[in-house]
């Protein structure tokens, strides 16, 4: 395998594990963790393509990854805030018990 393919396979593995966490776990915080893992796998893809692509001096992939990290941080803050607000009402973070959206 080429070096690029090695990094892409690692990113695919992390993405699949994040997807498995988001689809199978019952705790809302763990589902957010799975989404973070998927975002990180996408970032690894961007950086790998930037490194082995034809024009690394243009910095395009690096900038995309940088903005993606910033958006992921905002997503984590809002998501965890929502989980905490839901927990205050219903005393649970179990997704199977989250059956209504009205407060």
């Amino acid at each position, binding site marked *: *395998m*080429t*070096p*690029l*393919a*090695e*990094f*892409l*396979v*690692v990113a*695919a*593995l*992390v*993405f*699949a*594990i*994040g*997807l*498995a*966490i988001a*689809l*199978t*776990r*019952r*705790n809302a*915080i*763990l589902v957010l*963790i*799975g989404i*973070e893992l998927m975002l*990180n796998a996408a*970032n*690894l893809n961007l*950086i*790998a393509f930037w*490194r082995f692509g034809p024009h*690394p*001096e243009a*910095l395009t992939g*690096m*900038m995309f*990854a*940088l*903005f993606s*990290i*910033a958006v992921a*941080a*905002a*997503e*984590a*803050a*809002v998501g*965890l*805030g*929502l*989980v905490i*607000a839901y927990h205050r009402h219903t*005393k649970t973070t179990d997704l*199977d018990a989250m059956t209504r959206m009205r*407060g």
Partner: protein
Amino acid sequence: MIFGFSILFLLTAVVTVAGALAAALLKNLVHCALSLTVTFAGLALLYLELGAQFIGFAQILVYIGAVAILVVFAILLTRGAGVPEYRGYSSSWFFGLVIAAATFALLAWAVVKSLPASLVSATPAVSVQSIGTALMSSYVLPLEIVAVLLTVALIGAVIVAMPEGKASSEKGGPQ
């Protein structure tokens, strides 16, 4: 070199994937958050191996410094009154696992099939100065939009997580 992989890459890849697997399999939520931190550190090391020093250190600062701490805080804040003993996996866990495995198989197949045999280039020399120049010249509009997005998201997160009685009394106060 082991099986054609460099030892450094193999070590960091194994640490990264093992941390993600531990986050998927462990029962204790705090242990999950700590193994997530290991995965973030492994990804930062992979970025450093790829020659993206700035992104690697930004990953350490943002993910290990902020997101992991936020996750641990959320776990500890929401743990108190809940039932400590419960099933960790949803009722449809089998389908989720099948979907995840199929996704990985598809991605790995596409990667192995579609890439050319040799694609080796020299490590690009990127200084922090060139990143700053790019951010301030051609990427200045996305940078400002991200700044606005972060402000809005963090204020929104604080308002969402604020106790409701306090928020409504402050809203109703001056009226």
